[in-house]
């Protein structure tokens, strides 16, 4: 495995720690001194990388050696990191190792985090199987990884390395027609890239191993993950809208501008009725029949009737009383006048 030969004593303590974690070495107690870390580093990592470095010579035997080492690591990896076996705490620390800051792992969240870890564990799978070297087809998964890294800063570095490595890897794949040496050179270049071998690296190493076994990359079946990646979104929305469209490996066909064709005179073929009505319209449908129910209508009618009657009644009182009073006054006056007239003579 690729590691710069540097004096580990010059490394900072956090860096030593991350290196140790990356190599699956159990960390010493928190308060232990840097010396302890350095010793562990020398013991576990430098030895390993020393063995790996011999593979730089372009010698078939040495390549074999590296092959077997990769196999060991490959086998060691999944058994150590089978998410369903891990305890909650272990799962969380493992996720943290991959730069995912996991929340509390409880019954309802555990399965999600398990899946997430699984996805992180095999990000390199599609690269093994995908036959074409089309970088933009991987943008999907890389986007996911990047969103993951937004939460955990420690992973950013290794992600950048990973991206770098992907580039290098494509470069190294360009001389496909030629065999061994050139491909191996690409491999060596990429392997000098960083001192931080994460599981990404281990996966990438297996890719390199495949290239080194001279297996033709054009023949490898381009099925599995990457087809799945495209299929998944298609089944969700696009398949609903364009059920008759066959999912193509490039995924480009899914975004063709079908509606324009449909609008140009031909009957539109994709099924509108299946388009789920928006919650708004559903609500309106539900509301409309009882927008003004009968009893409300009657109630309103009675209320209005009562109001009118009350107004009328009060009007009547207001109008009637003054008149009555006025008439009374008038009659009283005439009576008193009559009385006074009678009394005068």
């Amino acid at each position, binding site marked *: 495995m690729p590691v710069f030969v540097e004096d580990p004593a010059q490394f900072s303590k956090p860096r030593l720690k991350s290196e140790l974690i990356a190599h699956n070495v159990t960390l010493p107690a928190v308060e232990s001194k840097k010396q302890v870390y350095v010793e562990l580093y020398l013991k576990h990592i430098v030895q390993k990388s020393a063995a790996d470095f011999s593979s730089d010579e372009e010698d078939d035997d040495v390549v074999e050696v590296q092959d077997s080492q990769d196999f060991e690591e490959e086998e060691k990896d999944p058994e150590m990191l089978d998410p369903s076996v891990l305890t909650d705490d272990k799962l969380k620390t493992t996720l943290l190792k991959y730069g995912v800051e996991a929340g509390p792992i409880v019954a309802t*969240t555990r399965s*999600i985090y398990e899946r997430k870890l699984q996805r992180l564990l095999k990000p390199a799978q599609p690269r093994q199987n995908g036959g074409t070297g089309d970088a933009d087809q991987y943008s999907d998964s890389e986007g996911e990884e990047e969103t993951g890294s937004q*939460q955990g800063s420690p992973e950013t570095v290794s992600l950048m390395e990973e991206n770098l490595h992907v580039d290098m890897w494509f470069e190294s794949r360009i001389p496909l027609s030629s065999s061994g040496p050139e491909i191996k050179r690409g491999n060596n270049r990429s392997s000098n890239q960083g001192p931080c071998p994460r599981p990404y690296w281990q996966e990438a190493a297996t890719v390199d191993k495949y290239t080194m076994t001279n297996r033709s990359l054009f023949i490898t079946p381009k099925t599995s993950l990457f087809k799945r990646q495209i299929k998944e979104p298609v089944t*969700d929305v696009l398949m609903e809208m364009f059920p008759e469209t066959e999912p193509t490996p490039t995924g480009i066909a899914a975004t063709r501008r079908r509606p324009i064709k449909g609008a140009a005179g031909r009957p539109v073929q994709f099924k509108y009725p299946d388009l789920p009505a928006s*919650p708004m319209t*559903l*609500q309106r449908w539900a509301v409309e029949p009882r927008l003004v129910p009968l009893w409300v209508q009657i109630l309103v009618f009675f209320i209005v009737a009562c109001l009118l009657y009350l107004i009328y009644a009060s009007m009547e009182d207001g109008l009637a009383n003054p008149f009555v009073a006025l008439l009374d006054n008038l009659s009283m006056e005439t009576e008193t006048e009559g009385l006074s007239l009678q009394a005068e003579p």
Partner: protein
Amino acid sequence: MSTTSQKHRDFVAEPMGDKPVTALSGIGEVLGNKLEEQGFDRAFVVLGQYLLLRKDGELFTEWLKDTSGANTRNATSCSQCLREWCDSFL
């Protein structure tokens, strides 16, 4: 998603209080029933799950798709609605 539905705006406009799970945008009757069967009968319970996943929209949509069988659009709509609610009320 460029525009938001009326349901989304209604939900984001005020504290969720005791609203049923179907008040969440993207959760209709069918999805609501499935969620209720699993104990997520109120919008705040779903909010709890959202918060447990550290407001990670990606994980939350995945969870919602798993639990209720929502499609991507509905799940994204629900997650967006909860995110905006959290932005204004949390």
